[in-house]
C-alpha cells in the first residue's frame, strides 16, 4: 500500500538534493572545522558557505546565524539566553498561550527561576492582540516572544506589529519562525526581530540542526560552554553535514516558495472543501485568512482524534492530532484550548499538514477515506445525536 504522509508540520522527509550534498560531504570531508589543516579548512569552508546560504534566505548577515542542535535548542538559547543575560535589567517576559512547548516549557522553567511570565490569551481564531502585548509591557520587561506561525493550526500571528511595538518600547523581540520558514516569506529585514528560531527538519533538511538568528549587537548567555564555536554562543564540534544540508534546504525552499506555496494552498483548500462537503458537524480551527498555506486543522464532533488517526492509518494515511506528541498526554491540545475550543471538540481535532510530495489524488483519496472513518466512529460514539440518542 502506498502511504500518504499528511504530517509535514511534525517533520518533513529529507529531500533528494539535500541528501546528495550531505552524503558527498560525509564521504569526502572528514575534517573538524576547528582543525587548521586542509581537512579542517575544507570543513570550515562548507560550514561558512551554509551559513551564507541560511543568512541570505532570511535576509541576515552570516555572522548573525548561530547553528544549534535543533529548533528546540534555538528557542531555548533565545529565551534562556536573553533572560539570563538581562536579569539585572528586569525579570518580566511576555509570550502567548499557543506557543510550542519549546517556548512554553522554557518560560515555566524561568518562572521557577524567579522570572515572571505573562502568557497572553488568543482570540477564537488563535490570534494575539498586539494592543494586549503593548499593555503588558512593563519597565522590567526584558523579552517578548511570539511565534510567527503556529504548528498545530497554521495561524500566522501579527508579528510585524508586535515587533514594531517591541522596538518602540526597546524590549528585545524573539519569534519562533520554525513553521514559517519555507512556507511563507520571512525576512529579518522586514520583521526586524532581535532573535528568530529555525529548524532544518521542517524544510526538508535533516533533524537535529537548528538556527538561531541573533541580531548583531544582541547578547545571549550560552546554554553550553566549551569553546569558541559559533562565536562562543554554541560550543561543540559542528554537525558539518547537517549544517550543509540545512543550507541547501534553505536555498531550495526559497527558490520554490511561491510556486510550491500556491500549489499547497490549492491542495489544502481542496481538502478543506472536500471535508466540509462530505462530512457534517465539522469545525475549522484558526483564522481562515491568516494560515500557513499547507495547514488545516479541523474538529470532528462526537468522535475522538486518535480513533480517526487509527482509521486513517488502516488505509495508509498519516495525519496527527495537534503537535507530534506521544499519547501519554491525555489532555486536549493546549493550542485549541487557548482558542476556546471545548475539550470534547478539541479531542476530536485533526491536523493535516501538506508537503512537497502530496498530490491531488492523495487529497481526494483522503477525503473519501476520512468521510468513511468519521461515519463509522460516529456510529460507535455515545455522543452522536442520530446514533446515540
Amino acid at each position, binding site marked *: 500500500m502506498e502511504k500518504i504522509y499528511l504530517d509535514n508540520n511534525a517533520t518533513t522527509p529529507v529531500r533528494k538534493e539535500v541528501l546528495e550534498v550531505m552524503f558527498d560531504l560525509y564521504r569526502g570531508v572528514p575534517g573538524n572545522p576547528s582543525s587548521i589543516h586542509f581537512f579542517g579548512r575544507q570543513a570550515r569552508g562548507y560550514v561558512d558557505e551554509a551559513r551564507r546560504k541560511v543568512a541570505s534566505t532570511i535576509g541576515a548577515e552570516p555572522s548573525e546565524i548561530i547553528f544549534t542542535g535543533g529548533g528546540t535548542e534555538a528557542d531555548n538559547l533565545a529565551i534562556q539566553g536573553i533572560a539570563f543575560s538581562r536579569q539585572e535589567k528586569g525579570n518580566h517576559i511576555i509570550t502567548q498561550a499557543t506557543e510550542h512547548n519549546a517556548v512554553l516549557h522554557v518560560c515555566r522553567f524561568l518562572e521557577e527561576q524567579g522570572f515572571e511570565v505573562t502568557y497572553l490569551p488568543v482570540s477564537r481564531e488563535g490570534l494575539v492582540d498586539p494592543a494586549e502585548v503593548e499593555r503588558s509591557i512593563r519597565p522590567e520587561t526584558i523579552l517578548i516572544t511570539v511565534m510567527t506561525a503556529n504548528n498545530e493550526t497554521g495561524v500566522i500571528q501579527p508579528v510585524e506589529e508586535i515587533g514594531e511595538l517591541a522596538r518602540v518600547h526597546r524590549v528585545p523581540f524573539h519569534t519562533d519562525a520554525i513553521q514559517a520558514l519555507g512556507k511563507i516569506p520571512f525576512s529579518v529585514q522586514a520583521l526586524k526581530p532581535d532573535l528568530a528560531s529555525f529548524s532544518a527538519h521542517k524544510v526538508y533538511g535533516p533533524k537535529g540542526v537548528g538556527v538561531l538568528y541573533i541580531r548583531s549587537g544582541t547578547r545571549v548567555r550560552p546554554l553550553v560552554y566549551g569553546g569558541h564555536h559559533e562565536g562562543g554562543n554554541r560550543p561543540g564540534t559542528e554537525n558539518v553535514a547537517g549544517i550543509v544540508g540545512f543550507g541547501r534546504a534553505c536555498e531550495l525552499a526559497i527558490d520554490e516558495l511561491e510556486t510550491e506555496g500556491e500549489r499547497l494552498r490549492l491542495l489544502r483548500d481542496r481538502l478543506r472543501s472536500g471535508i466540509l462537503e462530505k462530512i457534517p458537524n465539522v469545525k475549522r480551527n484558526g483564522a481562515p485568512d491568516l494560515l500557513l498555506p499547507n495547514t488545516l486543522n479541523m474538529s470532528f464532533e*462526537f*468522535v*475522538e482524534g*486518535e*480513533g480517526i488517526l*487509527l*482509521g486513517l492509518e*488502516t488505509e495508509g494515511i498519516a495525519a496527527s492530532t495537534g503537535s507530534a506528541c*506521544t*499519547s*501519554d498526554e*491525555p*489532555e*486536549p491540545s493546549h493550542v485549541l484550548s487557548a482558542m476556546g475550543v471545548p*475539550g*470534547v471538540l478539541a*479531542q476530536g481535532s485533526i491536523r493535516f499538514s501538506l508537503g512537497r510530495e502530496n498530490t491531488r489524488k492523495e487529497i481526494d483519496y483522503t477525503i473519501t477515506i476520512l468521510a468513511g472513518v468519521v461515519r463509522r*466512529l460516529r*456510529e*460507535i*460514539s*455515545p*455522543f452522536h445525536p442520530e*446514533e*446515540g440518542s
Partner: protein
Amino acid sequence: MNIEAPYSDKVMDHFNNPRNVGEIEVPDGVGMVGNPVCGDVMKLYLKVKDDRITDVRFQTFGCGAAIAVGSMVTEMVKGKTLEEAIIISNKKVAEALDGLPPAKMHCSLLAEDALKAAIEEYRAKQEGMADVQSEHHQED
C-alpha cells in the same frame, strides 16, 4: 525493519469490525465511565435474565484501544452470569486482545469499569424493585 505495529491484529480486528455496537432500547443496566475531555468514554448496556447477561451493547468515544476493549468485553460477557461477568478484570480483556501497548493499558480499565457500572446499576435497580416489591408486600 521494525515498524512495530501499535496494536495486535486482534485489536485491529475489533477496531475495524467492532461487535455489539450500539444501544439497547430498554436496558436492564447501563454503565457510562470516562471523561471526554481526557479522551475516552465508554457506555455499556445490559439485558439480564435470571442473573445471566442475555444481550450487551457498547458505545465508545475514544482511541482505537478504547473501541477494541469495548467490543471485546461485550463478547466476553455475553451469556455469562453476573457473578462470572463482574470478576472480568481489565487485564483479562487486554489478554483476550493479545495485549495492549503499555501506554494504552488504561483503556482496558474503561471496559472493566463500564461493565461493573452497568452491573451495579442493574443490581441497584433490582434492589430498588425488591424494596418496592417488599414494600408492596407489606402493604398487601
